[in-house]
């Protein structure tokens, strides 16, 4: 295998940085919100799930690109 492909795949997976930071911030804020208003936890939960799904998507795109680089 061309080593440049492996390096490229590694760089593509670095999208995980952004997703990790984003999910961390979202989780922290969700915990704060639930602590402040425990009765709204159902609504906060669904919004939070949606938010982390969208934040995580960037990491997944990087992963898919890395897979395409490695195995195609």
């Amino acid at each position, binding site marked *: *295998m061309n080593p440049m492909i492996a390096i490229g795949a590694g760089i593509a997976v670095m999208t995980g940085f952004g997703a990790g930071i984003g999910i961390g911030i979202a989780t922290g804020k969700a915990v704060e919100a639930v602590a402040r208003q425990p009765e709204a936890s159902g609504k906060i939960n*669904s919004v939070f*799930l*949606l938010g982390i*799904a969208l934040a*995580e*998507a960037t990491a*997944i*795109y990087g*992963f*898919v690109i890395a*897979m395409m680089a*490695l*195995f195609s």
Partner: protein
Amino acid sequence: MAKTAEAALTVGERIKEALAFKTIFTVHIGSLSIPVSETVVTTWIVMFILIVGSILLTRNMRTVPKGSQVVVETLVGFLNDFFKNQIGHHWKIFAPYLGTIGLFLAVSNVISFFSPLAGFGFEPPFSMKPPTRDINVTAALALMTILLVIFSGIYFKGIKTWIKSFVKPAPFMLPFNILEYGIKPLSLCLRLFGNILGAFIIMELIGMLIPVFVPPIFSLYFDFFDGLIQAVVFVFLTTLYISEAVE
């Protein structure tokens, strides 16, 4: 040095082999030959589980629920309440589709946890890998969702209002609004596919490293938790897009 390179190559080769889709059998119609892959057979098994489960659980329905009927009624009631909250008063048309997609994804994402003889070189149906790790399955689901969103938007808003909604906040938003109909299915498809494939590859790596005792524990997180969360997210996003389209 040469030895490590060789070992790395074998890991890569083994991953590649695990990722490949085997052809189970080939259907011959005249001069046409259609290969039926692993994914299709696993999807049939998922369908079989769902159909048989539905028939068995809804037999002998009573007005006063008893036994398994309580569980089924709770599940359906929970799903219906969720769709009612999200979509509004048009929820009844969409609830069957959304519930079916949710059940299909939930079963097909966790099916590798239940495959009894994984890792012994068995062919499906005895060793099952999640069908959602095939991008064709997730692409088909995303396409169905976006078609439903478009047609329900036209049906409930009327064709004129629907076309006007492309220039809704301001006319310069037109290209972005058109682009949205391409990005929505693409992100739905890739999110599900990438998550399941990632979990699958990590499970394969753990299985190569420590073949006994450890994989089931990690499988609880990667197959069960992650798979169910992804099923929830797919249904949730579909519901959101539909409610955006019909309101």
